[in-house]
């Protein structure tokens, strides 16, 4: 770690200061005692976990464990009944979804949602937050600042399309893409927003093994090169094991365990709730 190496050259006090800073900074997402009921059903019932900055964290659990509801609560699409969500040190629990996205917490959806009647390229160009040209007057008169920003987005979008091998399809309507291509487009679109934390809801569902391998390569690359933190909800445990440093297990709306996949295999509660006897 670069910060550890640099500690040798600083005074002890600064080092201690830095260590506590690092500790508080190292947690990007802190979910505490989250509760959400639908009628009589406690879909999320006291769910607590943290996501470390720079990590790829998995979120697993049986169907109906409340994973997707937790995702909707974290990204503001559903209001929590109680509990707190700290993202990057800010309480986001009562924020509307677009404000949360603007802070750098962006999500993908379990069932891909694309902007069907817009081209693949437009799907990416529409993604960045707080675009100057999204104001009515600036968009209408397109001053140089807006045009420069548009060129920058265009360049970034074309680069991403090349990375995701969607370049040839850039002028195709997103509604015409195949299932796997939609997954790629959705991931490219959220990467386009340059998020701090990406919450991927079953990104590998319906994706063939070859593509899944490349997708996970790309997630690792994004994590290492761009410093994006990932929280991935996934059922494919071999991918989770390969990709995730830490895995959180949910069952019946609660977090029941946290650790590496190897640790979780030894955990009787996790085996009973989800992994099963093998």
């Amino acid at each position, binding site marked *: 770690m670069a910060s550890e190496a640099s500690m040798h050259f600083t005074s002890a006090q600064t080092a201690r200061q830095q260590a506590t800073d690092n500790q508080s900074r190292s947690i990007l997402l802190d979910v505490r005692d989250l509760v959400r009921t639908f009628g009589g059903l406690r879909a999320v019932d006291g769910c607590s976990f943290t996501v470390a900055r720079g990590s790829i964290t998995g979120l697993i659990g049986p169907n109906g464990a409340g994973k997707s509801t937790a995702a909707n609560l974290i990204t503001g699409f559903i209001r929590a009944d109680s509990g707190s969500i700290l993202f990057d040190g800010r309480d986001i629990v009562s924020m509307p979804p*677009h404000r949360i996205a*603007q802070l750098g917490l962006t999500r993908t959806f379990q069932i891909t949602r694309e902007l069907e009647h817009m081209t693949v390229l437009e799907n990416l160009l529409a993604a960045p937050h707080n675009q100057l040209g999204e104001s009515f007057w600036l*968009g*209408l008169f397109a001053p140089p600042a807006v045009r420069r920003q548009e060129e920058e987005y265009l360049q970034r979008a074309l680069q991403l399309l*090349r990375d995701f091998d969607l370049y040839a399809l850039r002028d195709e309507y997103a509604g015409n893409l*195949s299932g796997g291509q939609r997954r790629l487009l959705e991931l490219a679109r959220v990467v386009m*927003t340059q998020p701090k934390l990406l919450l991927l809801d079953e990104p590998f569902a319906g994706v063939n093994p070859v593509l899944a391998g490349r997708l996970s390569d*790309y997630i690792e690359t994004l994590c290492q090169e761009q410093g994006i933190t990932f929280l991935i909800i996934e059922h494919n445990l071999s991918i989770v094991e390969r990709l995730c440093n830490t895995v959180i297990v949910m069952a019946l709306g609660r977090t029941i365990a946290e650790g590496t996949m190897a640790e979780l295999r030894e955990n009787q509660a996790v085996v009973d709730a989800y992994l099963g006897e093998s």
Partner: protein
Amino acid sequence: MPPIIFYLLTLATFAAIYGTLVIGLNIQWGYAGILDFMYIAFVAVGGYVTSLLMMPPATPGMGETYILGLNWPFIPAIIAGGLCASLLALLVGLVSLNRLRSDYFAIVTVAAGLILWTIAGNDTPLVNGWDGISGIPQPFANALNLDINSYGFFFLGLCLVILILVYIFAERLYRSPFGRALRCVREDEMVAQGLGKNVFVLRMKAFVIGAFIAGIGGALLVTYVDAFNPSAWTSGETFFLWAALLLGGSANNRGAMLGALLVPVLFAEATRFLPTFNSSPQLVDAIRYIAIGILLLLTIRFRPQGIIAEPRFRVPRRLFHRIGTNLPVAVAANSTRPTIVAEEEKTDGK
């Protein structure tokens, strides 16, 4: 002027005015996906406000009663008309645009339109009730002092200038990042929110902008026909404009103008020549509404994109080349960055 020329001049003027109106509806529906079934009320507000500002004060005991009557010149009056229509949109939007999903919002607009219509008809001191206002001053007529024939051409020119300005405005809006964000909201509200777009504010802006254009078009319509009463803006009129937009092509301003020419002008004119039956004088009107309904259904069923479909976005070639050559070629060469290959090369759309 031969009658046929006068007739064609009238049609052309109506086509230009309806073109403006349908472009305004296009900004609401085609761009932002707002189901607005009170569009004609915005047209009426623009028409009433502009007329009432231009008219002389109502003389007590002379038959017509109305508010305002300020003898304003045309230009400030038409701008005020547009702004009042926008204000109405803002109020309706504030009440319901952030709370209701699109179809429920549509019901609110139907209700709001009917409430306004009923008030305009029954509250006689306001805009002279069901009898309506008449003798509306013609724009620039005093200053130009033209004979009636030349004035007809002048007014057509005025309508065309406004149509062209509105068209250029709408096209710029469509291509701007603002228009792109509106279309993002139209396509999928949740995705838009997930991408940090304030859906409520964006839809509100589109609603208000569309209403402003409706108000401008309404001002032209009312000053052209010279008289206005609630029978000219029944809620059925809204669906003429909807039929025009859907038939011509949603999200395409040329389609909107084509639809305006085909439905409220040519179709309405064609049905004018149907024979009337003395036994049932309402028959032709009823047939007209039925035909519009059938046209709407057929369009939505067989050609949902309209005659002219939404234009497909392409990067301007000059920009593309400039950017394209700047692209780092490292994609293939840089081994640390994995290239993802989609499992299917062909799209099923072609």
